[in-house]
């Protein structure tokens, strides 16, 4: 199980491509023939993690389905920045209806293809965290419960960015948003609220649930391919930093995704039929402060008055994830390589042990 982790060729499987390995061990994104499902000219902000994540996911899905695929989009940044009338950035068949009904529309599209006998055409639904975790949740839960043949992808940037950075139920504790301002005694979003949608999806016991980040491309592409080999309801939760909403530098988007995973704040795992089957180990464990300090939405934890107590609470959340998901080295499935779900018999491809 897992992508074939290549070792020692300078960058192993960490980089997008690798001129020293065969094409089968490179990512879809490294190929000039990639679909570029979301093409240039879209109006996403500089350094948009969601634009990057959507291209990563849909290019991998197009590859896995040999181009026989329809995407259904909820309202949100992704829809707005890609389709200002009459332009479109999409190079896939693409459908948008409302904010909250994308999972239901995707179900309908899948049912329509089934009725037409076109079982070769696959359906991918996609939305931001608002459209998935809050507004679309009823439809999504129904889609899961009926085991409709849809891969639903949530691009999680942890707030309603399109409408001006309002809190969603995916917003993490202590984060500043327009509706959880850090003013006076208030320290941003409350602790102990919100939803963990990947675990809610696991609780539906659907065939496949996975989380991924835009910093671990080989892992993300593997999960899309894996999902497309299955039928029934599948859910992929992709962590996509947002420079605008998070107050981070535009060049730090991938770096923040990497830090979220390496600190343990965002556990990367996969599950089948209600059971967790693999986790991506932390390669270089880091304190959450390294992640928080890069983001304006946490600035109130460091200035004008430092709040190490709050940082410590966030660290506790990371430590809990590490414990709960077994994210550190030393567990049975780990090969110390950091690649998600990479198997212990990861390819050594003829390289000798020194």
């Amino acid at each position, binding site marked *: 199980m897992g992508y074939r982790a290549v*070792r*020692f*060729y*300078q*960058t*192993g499987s*960490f*980089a*997008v*491509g*690798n*001129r*020293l390995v065969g094409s089968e061990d*490179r*990512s879809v*994104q*490294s190929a*000039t023939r990639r679909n*570029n499902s*979301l*093409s*240039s*000219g*879209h*109006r*996403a902000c*500089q*350094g*948009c*993690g969601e*634009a*990057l994540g959507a*291209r990563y996911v849909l290019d991998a899905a197009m590859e896995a389905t040999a181009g026989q695929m329809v995407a259904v989009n909820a309202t949100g940044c992704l829809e707005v920045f*890609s389709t200002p*009338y*009459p*332009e*479109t*950035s999409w190079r896939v068949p693409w459908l948008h209806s409302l904010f909250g009904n994308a999972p239901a529309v995707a179900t309908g599209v899948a049912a329509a293809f089934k009725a037409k006998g076109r079982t070769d055409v696959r359906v991918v639904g996609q939305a931001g965290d608002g459209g998935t975790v809050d507004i679309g949740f009823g439809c999504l839960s129904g889609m899961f419960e009926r085991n409709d043949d849809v891969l639903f992808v949530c691009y999680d940037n942890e707030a309603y960015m399109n409408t001006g950075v309002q809190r969603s139920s995916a917003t993490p504790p202590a984060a500043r948003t327009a509706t959880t301002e850090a003013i006076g005694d208030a320290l941003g979003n409350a602790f102990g609220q919100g939803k963990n949608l990947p675990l809610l999806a696991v609780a539906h016991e659907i065939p496949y649930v996975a989380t991924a980040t835009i910093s671990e*491309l080989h892992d993300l592409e593997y999960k899309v391919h894996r999902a497309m080999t299955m039928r029934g309801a599948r859910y992929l939760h992709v962590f996509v930093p947002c*420079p605008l909403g998070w107050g981070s*530098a*535009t*060049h*730090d*988007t*991938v*770096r923040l995704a*990497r830090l979220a995973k390496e600190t343990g704040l965002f556990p990367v795992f996969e599950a089948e039929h209600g059971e967790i089957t693999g986790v991506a180990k932390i390669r*270089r464990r880091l304190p959450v402060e390294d992640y928080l300090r890069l983001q304006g939405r946490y600035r109130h934890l460091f200035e004008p008055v430092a709040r190490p107590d709050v940082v410590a609470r966030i660290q506790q959340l990371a430590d809990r994830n590490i414990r709960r998901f077994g994210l550190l080295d030393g567990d049975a499935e780990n090969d*110390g390589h950091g690649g998600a779900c990479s198997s212990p018999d990861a390819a050594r491809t*003829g*390289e*000798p042990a*020194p």
Partner: protein
Amino acid sequence: MTMLKPFAVTLDVGSSLANKTGSWRVERPVYVDRLSPCNDACPAGENVQRWLYLAEEGAYQDAWRAVVEDNPMPAVMGRVCYHPCETACNRAQLDEAVGINAVERFLGDEAIRRGWELPPCGPFSGKRVLVVGAGPAGLSAAYHLRRLGHAVSMYDEGAAPGGMMRYGIPRYRLPREALDAEIERILSLGVELRTGHRVADAVAAMEADGFDAVFLAVGAETSKRAYIPAGDTARVLDAIGLLHAVEDGAAPFVGRRVAVYGGGDTAMDAARTARRLGATDAVVVYRRTRDRMPAHDVEVEEAAEEGVQLRWLSTVKAVNGTSLVLERMVLDHDGFPQPTGEVEELQADSLVLALGQQSDLSLVAGDSDIAVRDGVVAVGPDMMTGHPGIFAGGDMVPAERTVTTAIGHGKRAARHIDGWLRGSSWEPPARHELAGPSVLNTWYYDDAPRSLRPRLEQARRASTFDEVVQGLEEPTALFEARRCLSCGNCFECDNCFGVCPDNAVVKLGPGARYAIDYDYCKGCGMCAQECPCGAIRMEPEVV
């Protein structure tokens, strides 16, 4: 084009490609080649990063060709260089430095084994150059001058070419098969060599034989002496003489207990040679401390491994038969050793003096244009002495005295001589900005510990002149080459192509790298941030 449109739709479908988001940009990414620390540190001016890049692909012959662009003797260099490249290597901050020296030796040995030939010489320039001294500087200069199209005659006082590589570096560090093969390859380019030919006067030689230019590289082969009161029965040798005699097959009797006085590489070599000649005790006596020793660490370590003992803070006051009188020293505030008056005895059948070497500069003594300062010849930045057309390099000019530096001198001198002969001047190309550790994104490099070179077993080291440090097998050399981070130079990992949220990076194909599509690049800087090797720089957009 008109087509029937649905209700309330008035415009045709367009692509967002019409929206040139490049106009948002305030900074632009630019591909750069930065100077890798290994290249920066190499005294021979090798493009280490480049030849490692080629070796990584298994293209060993191409890699070797890239080495010999600068240095015609990689098999020698891969053995005797003190590899400042590895000291500078950025990978040392990640795990351990790349074993550059070992890979270079692998390439050098591979070239000898497979009979790869040096690149052809340029068309004959009509100029003739005399090279005095067939050591590393002279051989390097001869090679580069031949490639630039000049006729080269090389005169050397010794019986065989190689200079200190032959008469100063023992066989257990540099087997003569490798040395001879690489010298022969240079000579086969058409260098006229006269051994056993001493040049007494450089200017006279230049004029008598009608040379257009001269490169002096006579080295520093004369041992410095120190006055030590010694009785008639005392056996006092000098280190260079000892090493030279061993090379000539006329090793002197050194006895069972040998003391070596000095702290440089030659002292270590003398002590290790003494062990191989049968000495059970070889003691190096040095007046300062280990950290102030001029000998390179690797030499000291290997000597210690072979049972050579080291005695710090001691000077030799006198020799009485088989007993040395040593005086204890202390370091003063400036780090200079000061006598304490305390003496002790050390039993030794012979004393080898390794107090440094100097150049025999009698061949320029008659020319007032050529300035000699502190025992070395003064040269300009173009390596020319005060006498037009006479250049000098290697150990006889002010510089670090290593084979690598000498090979670098030979190359630089050849280029300046070429410029001078053609009535112009050679300007070294501008150096790129240094690729220090801060430009790297080391996340992307796999964890890979360094491969060690096997060493000869201890028993054979103490008794034979077999080579101590062995070479790498091909798979290990490949592994080691692939540990290179390619600092500052694109190695086509596709990260920029992958991480651009705007598809604004164009992949140009193998070997051709990438280009930025500035029509759509928004200037977010992600490509530069996620580039593992620092080959992209963000520059302010000029409005």
